[in-house]
């Protein structure tokens, strides 16, 4: 199998870097080709990295509750840049307060994300889903 390329990073003004490093490690161990943009990543940075590396998916992390506003228009911008085939994933503490996850998931799926991971999702689950979705197995 050709190893799949993932572009990952923590979006917006968020500087939570620990989970980002752990996830990078886990994804690399699982055989993915990982391009980690680190923290405070803008939408444009994900897109530019995905173009140059011919990425299969973009993984957005957000821990500080502002994901909705940070991610607005990301799917559309990807399409505009010729990345229609790149799938978008998101995970973390996506909203502030106690909203039912079902609603949160709905909201982000509407924004063009193919999977939405709730807080506390173990890396193994994400890896399993990615492999299934990207046909890596």
């Amino acid at each position: 199998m050709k190893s799949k390329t993932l572009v990952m990073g923590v979006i917006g003004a968020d500087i939570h870097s620990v989970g980002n490093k752990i996830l990078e490690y886990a994804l690399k161990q699982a055989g993915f080709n990982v391009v980690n943009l680190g923290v405070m990543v803008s939408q444009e940075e994900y897109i530019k990295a995905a173009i140059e590396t011919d990425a299969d998916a973009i993984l957005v992390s957000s821990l500080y509750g502002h994901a909705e506003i940070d991610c607005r228009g990301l799917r559309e911008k990807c399409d505009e840049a010729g990345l229609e085939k790149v799938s978008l994933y998101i995970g973390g503490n996506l909203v502030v307060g106690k909203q039912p996850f079902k609603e949160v998931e709905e909201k982000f799926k509407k924004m063009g994300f193919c999977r939405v991971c709730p807080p506390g999702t173990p890396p193994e689950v994400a890896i399993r889903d990615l492999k299934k979705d990207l046909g890596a197995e």
Partner: protein
Amino acid sequence: MDNVLLIDFGSTYTKVTAVDINSERILGTARACTTSKTDINEGLNNALADLEGNIGKIEYNSKFACSSAAGGLKMVVIGIVPELTVEAAKLTALSAGAKVIGVYSYELTDDEANEIANLKPDIVLLTGGTDGGNKNIILHNAEILASIESDFPVVVAGNKSVASKVAEILKSAGKEVRVCQNVMPEFNKLNIEPARQTIRDIFLQRIIRAKGLTKVQNIIEGILMPTPSAVLKAVQILSTGYGTEKGLGDLMAIDVGGATTDVYSISDGLPSRSGVIIKGLPEPFAKRTVEGDLGVRYSADFIVEEAGVKMVCQASGLTLEEVQSYLNKIRSNPGILPNDDNKIGMLDLGLAKIVVKEAVKRHTGVIETSYTPMGKIFIQKGKDLTGIRKVIGTGGPVINSLYPGEIMKGVLFDEREPEILRPINADFFIDRKYILSAMGLLSEKYPEIAVRIMKRELEMV
């Protein structure tokens, strides 16, 4: 005696430097106007005659030369994303001492193909995609380049997965092709050395011949490199030292010319304070930038237009009328020297101050403050040069100025622009005898001696 002759065929002057290897001394320097339009030997012989007049006739064991005559090494660079492979390609070309005359991103269009044909580059650097990354764009661009009729060699330094395919496309169209390692093998990782080396090889084998510089090949060991590359080499070896001879550590150099200004920094440029997030491409340890619109003669009008005539008056100490009338003078005779008229020197001083300040600003990194829900965060783009303690000034307008220190002050940190990470406090050294490019050449064979001579000859102001 072991004597070495070092020659720099510049666009305006041919400069010669004689060095005694045993005593590690500069025997003398001289210059004459470059004659690239007729026979380049003419200018060289004039310079040598002048040198002989100063130091007498001596024999040379070897002769080396660098050249920026006949337009220098003109390159077009092509990549995908402007901030990524395009930038990496540009950095590669600049560090090879080239003049970048065209920069292209994403898929080339037919119009751009025409543009490239008209630019008549000496070499095209084709990049795009990390290894295993995007393939389509570089393949498309190879097809477009193949359709251009003019005869230029192409250095392919992109996605390795399609490198041989790209080479095939270009070869079948009759282009000379060199494939080397990717300038960006992984996302945000620079790898400029292999492509830089390849560019230099082509320069040696092909460009010299194409520019009619082969006539001098017979009397010298060879034209080793483009002049800016020799200067970069000199500055780099002066910084790092060689063998038992210690270097000066991190430093910068600025070369002010009549049409362009080059800035060099030898430093990793990492943040000088903690809690800074770095964004953008990693910076090369030895970095060269060149500003094609900043010079004190051919670019003088542009500077007055950009900075404003008031600023030029202030920087030079001339009145508005004087600035206008002397601008006319240098426009009609760009070769005019300050010793003919003191006010020319004042105008040169004013323009050089502005040029240095602006060129260093463009070379240096910036720091931005960003307010996040977690508090204040600093984001750095480019090199942090605040810790640089030594700056070398070269180029006619600096060397010949009565106040080189005044010009060099433009390098330093300015509290009105606190986001620009310029050196906070530095000593200035002047390349009084104009030896930097010669020392870059000398360091090819005698690196330790070159370091020692530079340490002795560069003059602190």
